[in-house]
């Protein structure tokens, strides 16, 4: 009986169409974050997307071109599902939250940004940061410098922001990369949604 079940499960699994691998970076506690960042909100809607689903390899190359860097084969592969959150007031959208994983000097950085409807950053924070100088990077004096930046002027304005750490320039560099990647991906996801995707 159990052997038959075993074969049955294998059969079901092999036919089940699956789009996703392990989730890239979702919020650990979206209710807390949404309430804190958007106090006027009444709810949020979670959407999972992959680059594979939206455009595959050509889209990946387009994103890499905008980013000015290649994606990591393990942590930024095509089938990594990204979660973005549409923030609602009643039925109306008032903003977005999106997180990405970024490889840092000692481990993963989880970089979260929130934007208004025009794509302007309203808040940036690390959900998790593997750095010996985590406190310097998490300091509001540093993270608040990204408020107001948009994708179109990010590279120019971010270049004026200085490294808050004493000896972790690599984590500073990848933070800038992570925020830019976050803005590019969110822009792609929302463009796709406006075109009638999910």
């Amino acid at each position, binding site marked *: 009986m159990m052997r038959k079940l075993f074969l049955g499960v294998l059969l079901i*699994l092999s036919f089940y169409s*699956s789009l996703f691998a392990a989730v890239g970076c979702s919020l650990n*506690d979206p*209710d807390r974050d949404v309430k804190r960042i958007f106090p006027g909100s009444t709810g949020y809607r979670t959407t*999972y997307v992959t680059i594979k689903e939206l455009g595959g390899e050509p889209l990946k190359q387009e994103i890499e071109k905008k980013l000015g860097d290649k994606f990591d084969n393990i942590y930024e592969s095509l*089938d990594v599902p990204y979660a973005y959150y549409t923030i609602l007031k009643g039925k109306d959208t008032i903003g977005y939250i999106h997180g990405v994983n970024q490889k840092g000097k000692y481990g993963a950085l989880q970089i979260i940004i929130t934007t208004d409807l025009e794509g302007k950053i309203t808040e940036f924070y690390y959900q998790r940061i593997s750095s010996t100088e985590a406190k310097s990077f998490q300091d509001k004096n540093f993270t608040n410098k990204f408020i107001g930046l948009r994708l179109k002027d990010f590279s120019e304005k971010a270049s004026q922001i200085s490294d808050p750490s004493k000896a972790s320039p690599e984590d500073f560099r990848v933070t800038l990369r992570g925020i830019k990647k976050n803005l590019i991906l969110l822009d792609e996801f929302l463009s796709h949604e406006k075109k009638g995707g999910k």
Partner: protein
Amino acid sequence: MKINHFLLCFIILLVPHVSAFANEVLFYKEINLIGGYSDRDHWVGKSNDLTNSVGFEDFRKFSNDYGDFLTTDLQARLSYDSMQNSHNAWGIQIHNAWALFKINSSTKFRFGHFDPAFGLEPQLDTHATILQTLAMKDIGFKKDWGFGLEGSLSKFDYKSALQLGSGMGIRRKDDSFLATIRIGTPAPENSQFGVSLLYGRTLETEDMKTIPQDKLLSDNAILKKRIGLDGQYLFGPCLFKGEAAYGENDSKKVFGYLAELDYTIPKYQNWELELQFQSWINKLGESSSADSTLYLGSSYKLNQSTTFRAVYSHDLNMMGQKEEDKFLLQFYFFGA
């Protein structure tokens, strides 16, 4: 038995139909292959908590015009326990089988099969790892059937649960139940601490199966009272984890603790080293009642879906039995 067969049929029939109403669906396949050598049992095909298995996880979000209102998760495995005879070796383990309703932004209601709100276990995903928390030695199982409330207050997160006290199986005997509550610092922090309370009458089982239902070691439930502390701290490439629990099993005083250090190799961040020591004392004051184990592990992530693990463990004194050295290898796939 009949209830469990009914449950399995219900789940198999329900999953494809519910997908029509879900807004977001994540579906993962899972394969776990594990084996190694122990100087006590010789060749082994399992760890203390993991067997060779295939399974899946089906995670769904439901929303309407006003946002998300329901999350569901079903995670099940068909497992093969090589230490059992062929009649008892096969079984279905239902791990997660829960629905989480959002009542408001501070409160959610969960029901089904999920973690008791006690200790480090509800903060971690130990579903596929050889290194485990104290939960199995402390409570006797990692998940239980019931319902609970959880959410976030201004500075703390809370979780509470009222469950059957039976673990994998759906049953109540000898007035079994399990009430737990954990209050902790918010999850999205580099450091995290929590305090938990537990009170209940729990059943002890021989193994971990939902179908066929795992066998009870005794028809009598054990009265358990606990207070627990847990914490995690991330600093650079090092993640420190720890927990301790103190209380009573019937009239016997019990105490356990765990300390773990995970180190991500900066140059090869898909490679992690793990060192853990855990000890559980079943009767304080009796030296032979301690069960202490030292683990040294390594995991290598080949890609997003595939992980290899190797763990050496030294069991110092398995409640009076002789010491044991064990080496385990694991192949784990979780993905599309």
